[in-house]
């Protein structure tokens, strides 16, 4: 109908020449707009000096530097990462974005730079070590995460409590609003290090997954550029350095760089 055709035409228009997020456009503009998290230490967060820091942020700055433009950060929550790209709010997402088949249909992922899988954290006093323990219990997740997706599609008899932000979900867990919390295991490792009363009882469920930068569907120009840049950074050991400076201090002994960084 009329509505559908108009959206189609605008879509085709945005993927062609007047896409505002091509490398050329970005260079012309002098800034690259990057979606990041603001409340997820140690990946993307704001320290008490008000600076945006973290593993993703270091990468983001490096990418901007390689592009010879200034970075401009747009803070997002997990459930608006896709729309931030599609509505041209940002050029690139570097917000711990896990590659999934559904997401691939609506946006384009560049080469991955991190490995993760879903983990489950719970209080040490009542640890959850098997998924079966979650049957008909409340499990805390953040909207739009792979954890939510996994439990919604694969474990339908778990009650999910869905939050908008990481702050909210971790607070909810501390207040015992659910028996456990599911999210990417890499955050959970970092979080439990500071929360001695909690443990990552299930270290990994579901398939091993990858974190990658994302661009708007059809933005070949930026996608290709990013792939090249990631390859270059991989070769010169950037990710290990990034790991050592941003992540290592937050992780316990149970995590090794090779669990996270892709070699």
């Amino acid at each position, binding site marked *: 109908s009329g509505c*559908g055709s108009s959206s189609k035409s605008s879509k085709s228009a945005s993927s062609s020449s007047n896409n505002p997020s091509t490398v050329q456009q970005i260079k012309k503009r002098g800034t690259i707009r990057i979606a990041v998290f603001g409340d997820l230490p140690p990946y993307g967060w704001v320290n008490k000096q008000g600076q945006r820091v973290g593993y993703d942020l270091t990468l983001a700055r490096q990418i901007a530097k390689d592009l010879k433009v200034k970075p401009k950060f747009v803070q997002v929550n*997990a*459930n608006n990462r896709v729309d931030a790209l*599609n509505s041209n709010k940002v050029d690139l997402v570097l917000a711990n974005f896990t590659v999934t088949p559904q*997401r691939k249909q609506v946006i384009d992922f560049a080469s991955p730079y991190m490995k993760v899988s879903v983990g489950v954290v719970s209080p040490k006093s009542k640890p959850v070590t098997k998924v079966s323990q979650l049957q008909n219990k409340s499990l805390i997740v953040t*909207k739009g995460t792979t954890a*939510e997706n996994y439990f919604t599609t694969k474990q339908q008899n778990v009650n999910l409590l*869905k*939050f908008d932000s990481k702050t909210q979900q971790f607070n909810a867990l501390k*207040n015992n609003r659910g028996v456990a919390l599911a999210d990417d295991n890499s955050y959970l490792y970092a979080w439990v290090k500071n929360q001695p009363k909690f443990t990552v009882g299930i270290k990994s469920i579901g398939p091993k997954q990858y974190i990658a930068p994302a661009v708007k569907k059809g933005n070949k120009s930026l996608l290709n550029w990013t792939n090249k840049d990631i390859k270059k950074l991989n070769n010169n050991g950037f990710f290990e350095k990034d790991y050592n400076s941003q992540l290592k201090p937050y992780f316990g002994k149970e995590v090794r760089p090779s669990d996270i960084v892709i070699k």
Partner: protein
Amino acid sequence: MSSWQIIQQSLPLFEKGFILTLWLSFIGIIGSIIVGLICSLLKYFRVPVFSQIAAVYVEISRNTPLLVQLFFLYYAFPVFGFKLNAELCGIVGLIFLGGSYMAEGFNGGFDGVSKTQVETGKAIGLSRMQLARYVVFPQGFTLSVPALAANIIFLIKETSIFTVIAIPELTNTALDLIGMYYRSSEYLLVLVIGYAIILIPLSIILTLLEKRVRYGAFGN
């Protein structure tokens, strides 16, 4: 998948959210009316201490956002061991907010009763209680109906903020689906329709009620 299929698949979830929104609004509104009426009566009868407490409550509640009130109830209070489940938080929050709005509505009605009516009542020897019972309340309730109606609509819309404390009402459902399946246009459309289904008929009913009540009591 076509838009229509997307929408169809989501309908069961939206239906759950819809019912929850209705249910929470209903409890919240009833609670708000009760709290509001109590505050208003405390003020009208100038009950010492309690009327002052009510006044302070009204000001705090009216001048802070529901979202912050909910954050407080949901995230901050448990730090000190006071924990309510999400739905209860939502309802308590909504009543906390709505109580003051309703109180103001009733106050407006009672204050709106004309001074000559009150004096006439006094002149025939009515006591304060009798004055309230036969003159101020019957006329004041009628006068407050428009404000109460506006508050009811307002409170229903405020339930959309419950999304921040993970209550799967309408808005939360839509945002969640968007986060998983990325079809924001379709889901937001369903969401808007969901609110319209509740609010359009309700606002028509309330307008009719207003007209009727006004005519019933003040046709002069």
